[in-house]
């Protein structure tokens, strides 16, 4: 069982032998799983120090599909971040020859969690004097470095020591930012995003999470625990986050004031880390409580409900896209935006969308794009919505990873549609023009253009959604079934691991499935001509197989010059249909003999050059045609010979009488001469 498989297994203790070592120091003990520290798809196990047996650590063994926040990990390893668990080392750990995982080792949180669901509420003083300073010390440091934590929640606070004095914020490095956060912890800007699509966010998002954390700890239960994500979002929009989340709670004035500052729905008005750290001074000027979304001067009827809030309307439109399209097309939305919302720019844009929608009624994708654009205009700060997916601007990569991890067909389909339309590019350009901050938030435009181009050839190997996955997640390991669980990050590693797998399976396996192809072509340059050949020849054909072999021969020369017996065995299997194309038994035997000889070198290029299979195929075809012509001629002659008996008879008669005549004349002359000589002489 590989480590990747174990990650999916429930916690169980076993007595395995000592595990491998990370960075020459941290021994990873897979037999000691720490279920309490687990969140998401990663596995948490105990780690020990080979230099100090008393030291204890925990190690997060990353799932191959998990996003690893490298910038944050780098900041954490470069310097100690106060108030946050220390990341001591991270890197690849080899559990067996092909079982390799990315592991991050942290200081052990010996005192356990600060709060568990169902525990009694914490004292106000504990929250304000212990929790808040700890969290703020961490955030102040991170925010100064331009980083966000995105994992501030009640379940992610731990005591570092057995005596439960030193409080620390848990790690948020080994999973996609915000992915483990309960919905209520997310501000309006990312609340409706898919958990994997919440993105790095802004420092203001962390501050908001601190506000919800305070409410969670003080209330002793997850705020709005009985509401769905949709209901929480709508309530926050209607009442403002502060009012929505504190409803029914008895809070002191100072806590209310702090919460009013940190739960402001407008990120610009929300307190920053510095203000929150010095909350006592800040509450001198009583902070204004948020009142939810702005209200228009009039209401609009949509699906039997009246809306005056554009964001609520936008949200409702995402739930009923067909009705939303009607609202756009019948012009009521434009009227409302112009008259009630008094947003001329948005009205003009919606008018353009309305005109375009009317001109292309039959295109379903265009209809969805029209609703997306309208929703974005009504809620420019909200998540990007498209059909079944909603994500924050920069979080398309982790979302794609999730879709592949769960093999979510619907999501993949929606993302395919989105990436092959130019909608993302259009929106990103528009938003980048409008705001520089937005430009930073978005996935780089070059990546979007590349993805758009890859999706044009989505059916071809080396392109499509898989290629976009590696384009948008450049640090993601290869997710090909052949090397999954071996944390392959580049072509050289791919060849190395695939070689081992192919040796163990005696050449059975496909080192060029869609994932492998996308991964290889995204990491290695100059493979376009091979991709063109793949596109021109259907999988399973001999040309396709030959191009595969050529591609790996090139990769071997460039990335892994050593012998590859496993790939040679695979080549032997792959080459079978090509050899079957050679019709001459003798030639086939010769080529096979040459292959067996060249195979010993373990060099694919040498085998290709030795067997010269392409020339052999051409020669074979030519010779086959010649043989066919020869056989045809022979057939014709045989048929003639078989059917010409009568003709032969006639010819024999003619020739026979000629011979008889010659003999007769000869005997006559002879008779005359002999008689003359005898009787006259």
């Amino acid at each position: 069982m590989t480590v990747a498989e174990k990650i999916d297994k429930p916690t169980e203790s076993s007595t395995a032998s000592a595990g491998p070592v990370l960075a020459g120091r941290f021994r990873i003990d897979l037999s000691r799983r720490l279920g309490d520290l687990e969140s998401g798809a990663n596995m948490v196990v105990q780690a020990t120090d080979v230099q100090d047996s008393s030291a204890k650590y925990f190690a997060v063994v990353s799932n191959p599909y998990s996003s690893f926040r490298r910038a944050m990990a780098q900041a954490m390893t470069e310097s100690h971040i106060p108030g946050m668990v220390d990341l001591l080392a991270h890197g690849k750990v080899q559990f067996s020859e092909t079982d390799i995982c990315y592991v991050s080792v942290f200081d052990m949180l010996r005192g356990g969690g600060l709060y568990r669901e169902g525990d009694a509420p914490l004292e106000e003083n504990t929250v304000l004097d212990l929790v808040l300073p700890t969290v703020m010390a961490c955030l102040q440091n991170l925010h100064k470095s331009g980083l966000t934590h995105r994992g501030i929640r009640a379940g992610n606070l731990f005591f570092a020591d057995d005596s439960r004095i030193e409080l620390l914020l848990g790690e948020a490095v080994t999973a996609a930012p915000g992915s483990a956060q309960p919905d209520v912890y997310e501000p309006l800007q990312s609340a409706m995003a898919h958990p994997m699509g919440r993105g790095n966010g802004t420092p203001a998002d962390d501050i908001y999470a601190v506000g919800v954390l305070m409410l969670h700890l003080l209330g002793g239960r997850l705020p709005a625990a009985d509401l769905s994500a949709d209901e929480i979002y709508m309530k926050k929009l209607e009442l403002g986050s502060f009012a929505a989340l504190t409803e029914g709670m008895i809070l002191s004035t100072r806590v209310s004031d702090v919460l009013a500052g940190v739960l402001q729905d407008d990120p610009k008005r929300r307190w920053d880390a510095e203000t929150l750290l010095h909350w006592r001074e800040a509450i001198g000027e009583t902070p204004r409580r948020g009142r939810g979304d702005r209200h228009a001067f009039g209401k609009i009827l949509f699906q039997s409900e009246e809306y005056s809030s554009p964001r609520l309307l936008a949200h409702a439109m995402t739930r009923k896209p067909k009705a939303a399209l009607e609202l756009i097309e019948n012009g009521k939305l434009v009227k409302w935006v112009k008259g009630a919302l008094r947003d001329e720019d948005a009205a003009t844009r919606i008018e353009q969308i309305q005109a375009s929608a009317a001109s292309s009624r039959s295109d379903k994708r265009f209809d969805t794009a029209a609703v997306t654009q309208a929703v974005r205009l009504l809620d420019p700060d909200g998540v990007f919505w498209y059909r079944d997916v909603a994500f924050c601007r920069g979080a398309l990569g982790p979302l794609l990873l999730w879709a592949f991890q769960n093999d979510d067909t619907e999501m993949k389909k929606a993302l395919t549609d989105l990436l092959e339309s130019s909608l993302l590019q259009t929106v990103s350009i528009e938003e980048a023009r409008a705001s520089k901050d937005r430009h930073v938030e978005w996935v780089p435009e070059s990546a979007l253009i590349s993805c758009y181009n890859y999706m044009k050839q989505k059916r071809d190997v080396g392109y499509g959604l898989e290629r976009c996955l590696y384009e948008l997640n450049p640090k993601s390991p290869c997710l090909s079934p052949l090397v999954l669980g071996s944390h392959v990050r580049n072509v050289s590693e791919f060849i190395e691991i695939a070689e081992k797998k192919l040796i163990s399976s005696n050449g059975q396996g496909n080192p060029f499935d869609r994932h492998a192809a996308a991964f290889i072509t995204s990491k290695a340059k100059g493979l376009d001509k091979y991709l063109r050949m793949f596109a021109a020849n259907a999988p399973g054909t001999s040309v396709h197989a030959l191009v595969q072999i050529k591609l790996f021969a090139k990769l071997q020369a460039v990335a892994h010059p050593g012998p590859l017996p496993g790939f040679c065995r695979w080549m032997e299997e792959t080459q079978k249909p090509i050899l079957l194309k050679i019709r001459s038994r003798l030639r086939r035997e010769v080529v096979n003999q040459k292959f067996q000889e060249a195979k010993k070198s373990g060099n694919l290029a040498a085998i290709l050059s030795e067997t010269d299979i392409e020339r052999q195929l051409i020669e074979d075809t030519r010779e086959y045609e010649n043989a066919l012509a020869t056989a045809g001629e022979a057939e014709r002659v045989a048929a003639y010979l078989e059917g010409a008996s009568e003709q032969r008879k006639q010819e024999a008669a003619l020739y026979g009488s000629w011979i008889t005549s010659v003999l007769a004349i000869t005997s006559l002359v002879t008779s005359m001469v002999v008689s003359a000589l005898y009787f006259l002489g």
Partner: protein
Amino acid sequence: MAKNADKANKSAKAAGGNVGQNIALFWVLILSGLGIVFIPPTMLVLIAGMIPSFVALLLNTDRSGSLAAMLAFNLAGVIPVIGILWERGQTFHEAFKILSDVYMWLAMLGGAGVALFLAWAVPVIVFSTYELQARASLAKLNKQRTKLVEEWGGQFVSDMKEVSRRQR
């Protein structure tokens, strides 16, 4: 058009042949007439010895080659007998004496017999030789085909059939 031309050629050839035959017959009759007048015993032996050729001529088998061979062989057998007649003095007495000799008849008719035998046997031998040659060629072609099938496999047979079908 081509058929008409062939017919015309054949009739032209037949006309040419008839003219030749007529000239030959003319000279044969002239010479026979002169022979009967000047050398009657010789003519007697000659006419008696050439009976098989006259029979062949009368049967008109449309095999001019055989007839010519018959005439030549028959004549070749008669000439020595005439030589003997002339040696003995060319008289009717000697002519009848010769005609009563069975060996003389054997010599004269033997030539015609050889002609008949050769006219029957030589075409048969030639045909047999042709047949043997054809069978050898067919065996060689079959061997070549087997070799090709062995070299190029089962697909070759069907492809070959396809090619033959197209050629037809």
